[in-house]
């Protein structure tokens, strides 16, 4: 196995163009498991760790651009206020050791339907910045990025450089079901983001369909039902209906972690719970935005 170590982003793109079969490695928490268990025998690894810009973030025109190599640990420390939903999800990934190495870019690269960063990225309308030497860079909305179980819109000669997302302008919550907090692959997960200025609601469902996805009908329903101005308490019937619509948006399977019925039921619970948390926070906010 050849070990390629580009010193810069430009060099990384050169190498990926020359060797489209080279497997990028960031924290290695997915790649190394596959190698140790002989599920994958890459001829070449492309180590992106030396590309320092990938572990940094910046803000341009009010939008955050977060490098693909930023670890969960750094994200929790530095972006909890701007990206509360993603930070909450990050806190539930693996164990402290895994969070010290694992990255959102690696989660996107793996594109597992159970990846914890996907629901909050979907709920917050994130876009994924990918680039190749041949065609330059493009921004892929998260909704178009996930294409199948562990398949994404990334072309073989492309690398993920960053994701772009606006800082939260309202409450965001993430919740997942698993057998314990540490090192649990989600049985199902759900993220919600309220966007009070636009009077819109974003959602993301994890582990309950071949790809992470949004619950579009549920979003439209709840955005129209919420009393954005008076900030009045939630009507329990509306909350229940929201839960039903979220559960309907999923197409879960039976597997060792849970049955399809259980997943649908649990998603409804997560949806009602996170909506309630988010709305309570919204009611508490004194700012008039």
């Amino acid at each position, binding site marked *: *196995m*050849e*070990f390629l*170590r580009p010193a810069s982003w430009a060099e990384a793109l050169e190498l990926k163009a020359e060797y489209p079969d080279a497997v990028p*490695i960031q924290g*290695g*928490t997915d790649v*190394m*498991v596959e*190698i*140790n*268990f002989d599920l994958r*025998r890459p*001829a*070449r*690894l492309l*180590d992106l*760790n030396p590309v320092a810009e990938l572990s940094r973030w910046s803000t341009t025109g009010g939008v955050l651009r977060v490098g693909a190599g930023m670890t969960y*640990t750094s994200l*929790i*420390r530095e972006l*909890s206020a701007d990206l509360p939903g993603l930070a909450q999800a990050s*806190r*539930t990934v*693996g*164990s*402290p*050791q*895994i969070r*010290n*190495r694992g990255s959102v870019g690696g989660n996107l690269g793996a594109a597992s339907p159970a990846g914890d960063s996907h629901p909050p990225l979907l709920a917050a309308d994130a876009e994924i910045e990918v680039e190749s030497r041949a065609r330059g860079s493009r921004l892929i909305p998260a909704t178009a990025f996930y294409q199948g179980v562990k398949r994404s819109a990334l072309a073989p000669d492309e690398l993920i450089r960053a994701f772009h997302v606006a800082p939260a302008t309202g409450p965001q919550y993430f919740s997942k079901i698993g057998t314990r*907090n*540490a*090192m649990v692959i989600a049985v199902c997960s759900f993220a919600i983001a309220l966007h009070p200025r636009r009077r819109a609601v974003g959602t993301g469902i994890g582990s309950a369909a071949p790809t992470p996805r949004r619950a579009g009908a549920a979003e439209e329903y709840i955005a129209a039902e919420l009393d954005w101005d008076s900030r009045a308490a939630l009507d329990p019937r509306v909350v229940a209906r929201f839960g039903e619509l979220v559960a309907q948006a999923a197409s879960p399977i039976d597997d060792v972690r849970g049955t399809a019925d259980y997943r649908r039921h649990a998603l409804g619970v997560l949806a009602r719970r996170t909506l309630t948390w988010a709305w309570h926070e919204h009611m508490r906010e004194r700012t008039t935005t």
Partner: protein
Amino acid sequence: MNDDEDLSAPVTMEMRLSVNGIGYPITVDTRETLLDTLRERLDLTGAKKGCDHGQCGACTVLVDGRRVTSCLTLTVALDDREITTVEGLADGSVPHPLQTAFVRHDALQCGYCTPGQLCSAVGMLAEARAGWPSIVTADGGSVDARLDEAEIRERMSGNLCRCGAYVNIVAAIAEVAR
């Protein structure tokens, strides 16, 4: 590079690996994990292989002071890093305060998980001192979090103990954290 080169054949690289303050010139297979290098080549058998996929924490070591699972870390990527294993925690013949506390609190039975627990605890205390929050740290609470039992349990959740010595492990760490 031509296409018919045999890439399934082992590729080796010469490097210098710095472990516990000693520089080792070594030749490693590019696929080799730090855990295998430590155990098989450097005879540093403190770090243990419990699962080989990041779940048990028995292989935890410190890379530039941060705790990582050495079974998921490639040795070739570490040429400019400083590695600390359980063998390097003591100061000469004086055990690390955590080692003393583990003994005093009887924080082990078989001892298999202990090197990983110790390295993880050293890394964890440094994280807490640097103000890193955990999932149980109250929102808006002080980030130089007081390490109560809930905090220690959460922050040590990447290290399993099949003998179930958790109560004493937590007590040992709590004593040093204070």
